[in-house]
C-alpha cells in the first residue's frame, strides 16, 4: 500500500476511535464460561459504573434460578452455557483471511444481491486491514449532522459513559431481566448494541442504520439496543441487511427496548437473511430476540416492519405495549422460507390505554420443504376502553411439500374493545403463472413477481432502499421454487 494512503488510513482509524466507533481488536478475552467473576471482569473491562454492574449481577443471580424454555414446534440442540465466551472471543483466529477463502455459495449470494466488494469483507467477518475509507468518512460527517440536532446515536457502551442518567432510567424498563430466560441472560452479559435518543420535537433527518456502526455486524451474541423517542420526535431505524448473516456463534440472544413518548413515532425496520450454513443446514443461527416497545405517551406510535428469509430458527415476537391513550402499534411482516428452512415469527399487542389501536399484517411464503409459523397474541386489558385491533395473516404455499401454521391468540377483557382477525391460505394459481409466461416472463420470475405482489401491503412500509433490497432478496430466495 502506498505510503500516503497508509497514513490516511491511520488518521481515519484514529478518528474513528475519537468518535466512538471503536473496532474491537482486543486479543485478550475473558475465560470461557459464565460466573460472577467473569461478569465483574466484563464490567470492569468496559469501565462500567457500579449501578450497571449491579444490574448485571442481579440478572445473573436470577438467571441461575431459571430453566431454559423449550417450544413444541421446533427443536434446537442443547446449549452448554459454560462453553461460550461472554467477552470478545478472538474472532481473527476463526474468520477467513481473504474473500477467496469464503464458502463459494456465500460469494454467489453476494453477487446475486449486488453487494459491493468492500461490504462483503465486512459482512463475512474478515477484519478490515484495507479500511473502508469511504464509509468511514461518510459516517463521520453523518454523526456530526445528528449531533447538531441533539440526536444521540452511539454504542451502548459509549452511552453508559457519556449519558449514564438516560441509560439508567430506561434500561430494563421495557424488558426487565425477569421477563424471560434469554432476556435475563442478555441482561447479565450483554456486550454492546445501539443507543438512540431523539430529543423533544426533533425529527431525525436520516434513517439510522446499524450498518453505520461498522463493528455492529461483528457485535457478539448478546446485543442490547435501547431507543428513546422523546415527546413529539420521530425516528426511522434500520436493522440488518440482505447479505447473508453468518457468525461462528450459533446462539444469539438480543434485547431491543424502545420507549415512545407523547406524540412521538418510531419506525423499526428489519431486513434479514440468515445464512443457511452448509448444505445440511449446519451452522444455521439460532436467534432468540426479545423486542419490545412501550408506547407510554399519548398518541405515541411504534411500527415494526420485518422481512426475514433464511434457515435460522428465529424466535422473535416484536411486541407493543400500548399504554398511552390513543397509542398505535403496528406490525408488518414477510417471512419467506424455502428448502428446509423454518420460520417462527409473530407479534404481541397488549392494549392498556384507552382508544389504543393496533394493526397486524403478516404474510408468509413457504416453498420447498419448509415450514412457516405465525404466532400472534392480541390482548385487550380491562382498562382498554374503545381499543381496536385488526389482524390479517396470509399464507402462500408454493409446491406440495411445505407447510404453514397460523396460531393467533385473542383475548378480550373489555367489552368496548374490538378485535378482528382474518387469515387465508392459498397457492399461486396456474392461471397466474401461465399468464405471466405468455407475456415472456419465465416461471421463476413470474413467481417472484407474484410473491412480491402478495407482500406489497407489507413492503410499502419499508423505507425505500430497504424495500428495493428486500424485493431482490425475496426473488433470490425463491430461486428454484417453480421446479421444487
Amino acid at each position: 500500500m502506498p505510503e500516503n494512503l497508509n497514513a490516511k488510513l491511520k488518521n481515519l482509524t484514529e478518528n474513528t476511535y475519537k468518535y466512538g466507533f471503536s473496532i474491537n481488536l482486543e486479543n485478550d478475552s475473558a475465560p470461557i464460561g459464565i460466573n460472577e467473576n467473569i461478569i465483574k471482569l466484563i464490567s470492569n473491562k468496559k469501565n462500567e459504573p457500579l449501578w450497571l454492574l449491579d444490574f448485571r449481577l442481579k440478572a445473573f443471580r436470577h438467571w441461575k434460578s431459571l430453566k431454559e424454555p423449550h417450544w413444541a414446534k421446533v427443536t434446537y440442540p442443547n446449549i452448554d452455557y459454560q462453553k461460550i465466551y461472554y467477552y470478545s472471543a478472538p474472532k481473527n483466529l476463526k474468520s477467513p483471511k481473504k474473500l477467496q477463502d469464503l464458502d463459494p455459495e456465500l460469494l454467489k449470494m453476494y453477487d446475486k444481491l449486488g453487494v459491493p466488494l468492500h461490504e462483503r469483507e465486512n459482512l463475512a467477518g474478515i477484519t478490515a486491514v484495507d479500511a473502508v475509507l469511504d464509509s468511514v468518512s461518510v459516517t463521520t460527517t453523518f454523526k456530526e449532522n445528528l449531533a447538531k440536532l441533539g440526536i444521540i446515536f452511539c454504542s451502548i457502551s459509549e452511552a453508559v459513559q457519556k449519558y449514564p442518567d438516560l441509560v439508567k432510567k430506561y434500561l430494563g424498563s421495557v424488558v426487565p431481566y425477569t421477563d424471560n430466560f434469554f432476556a435475563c441472560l442478555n441482561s447479565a452479559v450483554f456486550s454492546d448494541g445501539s443507543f438512540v435518543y431523539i430529543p423533544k420535537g426533533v425529527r431525525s433527518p436520516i434513517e439510522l442504520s446499524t450498518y453505520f456502526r461498522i463493528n455492529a455486524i461483528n457485535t457478539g451474541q448478546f446485543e442490547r439496543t435501547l431507543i428513546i423517542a422523546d415527546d413529539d420526535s420521530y425516528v426511522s431505524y434500520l436493522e440488518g441487511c440482505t447479505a447473508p448473516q453468518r457468525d461462528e456463534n450459533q446462539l444469539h440472544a438480543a434485547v431491543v427496548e424502545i420507549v415512545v413518548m407523547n406524540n412521538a413515532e418510531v419506525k423499526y425496520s428489519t431486513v434479514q437473511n440468515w445464512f443457511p450454513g452448509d448444505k445440511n443446514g449446519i451452522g444455521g443461527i439460532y436467534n432468540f430476540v426479545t423486542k419490545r416497545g412501550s408506547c407510554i405517551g399519548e398518541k405515541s406510535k411504534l411500527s415494526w416492519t420485518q422481512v426475514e428469509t433464511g434457515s435460522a430458527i428465529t424466535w422473535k415476537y416484536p411486541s407493543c405495549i400500548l399504554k398511552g391513550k390513543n397509542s398505535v402499534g403496528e406490525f408488518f411482516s414477510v417471512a419467506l422460507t424455502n428448502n428446509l428452512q423454518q420460520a417462527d415469527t409473530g407479534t404481541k399487542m397488549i392494549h392498556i390505554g384507552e382508544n389504543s389501536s393496533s394493526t397486524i399484517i403478516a404474510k408468509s411464503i413457504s416453498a420447498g420443504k419448509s415450514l412457516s409459523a405465525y404466532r400472534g397474541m392480541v390482548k385487550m386489558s380491562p382498562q382498554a376502553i374503545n381499543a381496536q385491533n385488526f389482524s390479517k395473516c396470509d399464507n402462500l404455499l408454493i409446491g406440495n411439500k411445505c407447510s404453514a401454521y397460523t396460531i393467533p391468540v385473542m383475548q378480550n377483557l373489555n367489552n368496548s374493545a374490538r378485535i378482528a382477525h382474518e387469515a387465508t391460505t392459498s397457492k399461486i394459481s396456474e392461471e397466474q403463472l401461465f399468464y405471466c409466461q405468455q407475456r415472456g416472463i419465465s416461471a421463476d420470475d413470474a413467481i417472484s413477481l407474484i410473491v412480491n405482489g402478495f407482500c406489497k401491503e407489507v413492503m410499502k412500509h419499508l423505507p425505500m432502499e430497504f424495500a428495493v433490497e428486500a424485493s431482490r432478496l425475496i426473488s433470490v430466495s425463491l430461486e428454484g421454487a417453480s421446479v421444487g
Partner: protein
Amino acid sequence: MLDDTLIVKNGTLKILIDDKPINRQINIQKNAKLFHFLIQNLNPTEQISSENIINLQENAYYETFILQTDAQKNNLKTVVNLLEKNSKTFIAGIYLADQKQKISMENIVNHLAENTVSEQQVRGIANDFAQTYFAGLINVAPNIKKVSGTQYHKALMLSKTADVKCIPELAIASEDVKCSHGSTIGMLDENQIFYMQTRGIPLSDAQIILTKAFIFEILNKINDQNVLKNFTQKVETWLIKNMK
C-alpha cells in the same frame, strides 16, 4: 373415556339429538349423513367435560349444531376426521355464558383426503364475569388435493368484566388448499344500531334485535322444526335474562 360408539351405515341418513354430554365416537360410512344436535340441559353447579370424535368415510356428511350454555364449567371438544375423499362437514356452534360460568368450545377438523370441505360457524356471547374460550383448528395433512376449509367465529361481550379468548388455528401442509378464517370479539356494530335508531327504534330494542339476529344467523340453518324450537327457546330464555 368413551361412552358410546355409533355407526351410521352406508348410504343412510340419521338424526341424533343429545341433551346431556356424552363422549361419543361416531363412524359415518360411505355416502351416509348424520345430523347431530347437542343442546345440553344441565344444573348450574355442574362441571362437565366431553369430547366427540367423528370419522367420515367417502362422500359422508356430518352436520352438527351445538348449544353450550349450562353448567358452571362446560368444556366440549369436537374432532372431525375427514378420512376419505369427498367427505364434508358443517359445524355450527353457539356458546352463551353469564355470571361466573367458564365455557370452552374446541373444534378440530382434520382434512386427510382429497376434495374435502369443512365449514365452521360459531357465535358466542359473554356477560357478567363469565370466561369463555374458543379454539378452532383446521388441519390439512400433506399431499392432499382440493381442500376447502372455512371458519368464522364472532363473539359479543355484554359486560366490562367478561373475559373472552379465542385461538383460530390453521395448520396447512398441502398446496391445493383454500382455507380462510375470521374471528371478531367485541360489541355490536354501532352503524347498524344507529341505522335502526334513525328508523325510530329505541336503543335497547335495537341492541336486542341485533343480538338476536347475531345468534339466529346460525340457528336459522336448522331444518328440523322441533329441534329449532328447542334451541330457540333456550336461546331466548338466556337473552331475556341477560339483555334487560
